[in-house]
């Protein structure tokens, strides 16, 4: 186990609200509808931060709490209002499942979405589930943790004597999902299903003969909920990058009492070979990883394995237990800032002059204007990066700004003054 020095700054970290998870989950969970119960602020986040403009099939919307709702002072105003709105949604879209997505304001005015969801489930004869995704407690990708818990509440119990099977936990792109399922079939691992299932009417059964493995490192609450239902959980690295992916499959093989086949090592070697050019580019490069989507540790591991040096590492939320396997591979003596002080960190990064900074959307341009190449961490959330095949896509994403940075550096055009806000007459 690497000695990881963790500094909790609990400061004004910049990151996306956990509502952001809806951006990928509404596509993943077919026939679902995400009804955010919140304010204009929540609604505006969804549309602006995620550049959501076109609605050929609107599958999420915000029930905006208005002044009159706050003045209502009746205990059941929220129930009546949501009943009306859910009724409209059911008539218009007929979703198979509706998530009542909790937010900061809904939490503060104590709207009992759990209870309302139960009542509406009865009335509309379909699961209408409370998903706790409030930005008071969670950060960006952790929103998925809340939604998966809601799904778990409707997952059936395993019948007695069910076969021991693998449950994959975490939303990944369909391409990645198919590739992983193929690989598992080849390894002859029996698979129960995936949470979230593409079809929410066919959720995997959960029970003591379920063996769960996480595809994403930010699902600790869901994993704990699974444990409470008797599920055995495999602790292993997040399958991002060739080595981590091999170790992921090996851990699964062992959990099912199989000796990992030598073929896995061959697949790993092939994947490394494919990303040879990117690896060459990144060897010895100094990289700051200050992302906001909780994939920072797996990405740091991959970059370390590619020969880069991690000069700054932070994450909005760190759970040592859930990330134990990823932590174990980190280089010795690294410092991890949890919920870093964004101002101090920016100054540190500027002084470090890394060759690449992986950061949130809001910080990229300020760093670029100072001549520091950046990569938006959010791209790791929206691009398929898991598994052997997609390691190449991942390596390319990371290498691109370094290549571009080299090109731009030749021009020497750096601007560290916000010139475009000033009038030049």
């Amino acid at each position: 186990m690497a000695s990881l020095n963790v500094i909790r700054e609990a400061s004004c970290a910049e990151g996306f609200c956990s509502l952001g998870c809806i951006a990928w989950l509404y596509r993943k969970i077919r026939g679902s509808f995400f009804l955010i119960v919140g304010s204009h602020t929540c609604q505006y986040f969804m549309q602006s931060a995620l550049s959501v403009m076109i609605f050929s099939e609107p599958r999420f919307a915000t029930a905006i709490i208005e002044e009159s709702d706050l003045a209502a002072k009746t205990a059941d105003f929220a129930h009546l209002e949501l009943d009306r709105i859910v009724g409209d949604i059911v008539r218009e879209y007929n979703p198979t499942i509706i998530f009542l997505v909790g937010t900061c304001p809904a939490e503060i005015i104590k709207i009992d979405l759990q209870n309302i969801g139960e009542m509406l489930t009865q009335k509309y004869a379909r699961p209408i589930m409370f998903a706790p995704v409030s930005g008071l407690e969670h950060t960006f990708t952790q929103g998925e943790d809340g939604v998966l818990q809601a799904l778990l509440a409707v997952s059936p119990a395993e019948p007695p004597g069910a076969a021991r099977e693998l449950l994959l936990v975490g939303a990944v792109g369909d391409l990645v999902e198919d590739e992983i399922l193929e690989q598992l079939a080849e390894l002859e691992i029996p698979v129960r299903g995936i949470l979230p299932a593409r079809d929410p009417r066919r959720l995997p059964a959960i029970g003591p003969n379920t063996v769960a493995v996480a595809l994403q490192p930010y699902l600790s609450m869901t994993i704990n909920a699974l444990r409470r239902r008797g599920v055995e959980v495999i602790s292993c690295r997040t399958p991002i990058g060739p080595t981590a992916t091999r170790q992921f499959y090996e851990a699964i093989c062992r959990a099912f009492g199989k000796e990992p086949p030598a073929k896995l090592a061959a697949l790993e070697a092939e994947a490394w070979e494919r990303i040879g050019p990117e690896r060459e580019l990144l060897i010895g490069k100094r990289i700051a990883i200050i992302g906001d989507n909780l994939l920072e540790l797996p990405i740091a591991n991959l970059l370390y394995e590619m020969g880069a040096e991690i000069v700054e590492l932070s994450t909005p939320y760190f759970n040592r237990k859930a990330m134990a396997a990823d932590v174990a591979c980190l280089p010795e003596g690294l410092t991890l800032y949890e919920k870093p002080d964004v101002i101090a960190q920016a100054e540190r990064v500027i002084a470090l002059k890394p060759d690449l900074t992986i950061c949130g959307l809001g910080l990229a341009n300020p760093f670029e204007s100072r001549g520091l190449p950046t990569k938006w961490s959010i791209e790791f959330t929206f691009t398929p990066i898991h598994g052997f095949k997609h390691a190449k896509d991942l390596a390319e994403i990371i290498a691109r700004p370094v290549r571009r940075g080299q090109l731009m550096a030749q021009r020497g055009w750096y601007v560290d003054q916000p010139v475009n806000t000033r009038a030049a007459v």
Partner: protein
Amino acid sequence: MRLHYWTYEGPAHVGACRVGSSIPGVHTVLHAPGGDSYTSVLFTMIDRQCGFPAVTNVSYGRKEVSTTGIDRMITVVEQVERTHQPRVIQVIPTCTSNLLKEDVGGALNRLQAQCNARLLFLQLNAFCEKEDQGADMTFAGLVEALATGTGERTPEPSVNILGLTSLGFRHRDDLREITLLLNQCGVQVNAALPLGGTAADFDRLGRAWFNVVPYAEIGLRAAKVLESRFGQPYLVHAPIGIQATQEFIELVQSKVEELGGRPANFHPRPESLSRVPWYSRSADSHYLTPKRSFVFGVASHALAVARMMEEEIGMRPLAVGTFSYEHSAAFLDTCAQRGWQGFYSDDFKEVERRIAELMPDIVMGTQMERHSARRHDLPATVISCPAHVTDFPARYSPFAGWEGANVIFDAVTHTLTLGLESHLIDMFRELPGVEHDSVLGAVRLPDLPDTPSQPTQAAAPAVVAGTTTTSVATASAGGTASGVLSGELRWTDEALAELKKIPFFIRKKAMHNTEKYAREHGIREILPQTIHATRDELSRK
């Protein structure tokens, strides 16, 4: 509660951040939970600002909500003062903080004694106010607190330009263009705020002879504060379009004279300063004459652009709408006076329904109308916020003044030309063996499947979903009857053949009109005669 899929304006605190981040020396502290820290992304991503945005989020969590939220806010304010040493720190609550019964103002008052920065608490109500109003109120609050100068007038005529902000629609370039106009009138700009000034400029606001508010949505409240404090009069006038620019120049000069200044006697011939008077008159523009426009946007821009379309470009607006609630009454009055069909709506779906009903030749709206128009195969151009990255072009591209008129003229004519090109591509697509899979594929006509049995292409649902005809499915797939289903209406094969005889560039419109006629007359199956009857009825109108 009201269900929203998309809104034209952001919440009030976004407006406050737009004001704060326009002024170097002002730092905004958002008193908000961690989830609200996305605001700064807007500035660096959309506006491509280089600096770290002068916005810091308090990012309180669940534990702090009921107990130590205020303490955390104070710690953050102290840290911002230490790190950035701003002249002003404005503390802005978001919706969650509105719900907490905290005495933020009181806490800041106590903290003020230990701070060099001026601390301001601007109480916005996120549950009623929206982005523009939030910006207007924030700016007025800053002026109220900081415009403390003597009010001694500058020796030469000067004005303040009030209300342009970061993330404003073309505000960056409008500032330069409006400054140019004022200089042509012999007037200096004493200060420009929020955009174009610094925190130090508040002190000198009182020295200007009068104030100019180009766009009434932001800046009007601040102008009123200055009027009552220094007796400064103000002008509210959007110089968008040739005549509006001329009027702006006349208004400024007569105000200077009224206040005892020497008249500059600047009475320019618009032809010498903008190409619009000539281009609009040139034979190339004759084709614009029968065309009709649809205008929608923030109140100031929608009114000014509608007038320009009607009087200077010659494309009468079929309807003129706005999402600016605060200015909607005056907006609707102006529309009524000009004989326009005016409307207020903050629901983009309603705006799209109106577009679909009217089927104008060009849609001038926000980014959302650009998408809506595309679904109806109509040319569109953007004339209003909300901010989008394409509204911050690399080139100089104002909306105000002489150059602004040129920019708008080009936007209209280029959009229409592109619209025609997309039809041409469509026409050639109908030739056998010619496949076009360009980006314009997204705007292809959804009307005539050449091979009715072919499954719908991937792009088709998106196109079809937005049209008034809710779904076009090939009936022959079901094997019951020939023809094409369009919602509850059926187009017979004969009617489709007749439709194909109509020139491609008005075919979509003919289809729309025929369906409208059929619905009005209770016809469920469209025959060639239905098309003829529609034409007859329209020609009688």
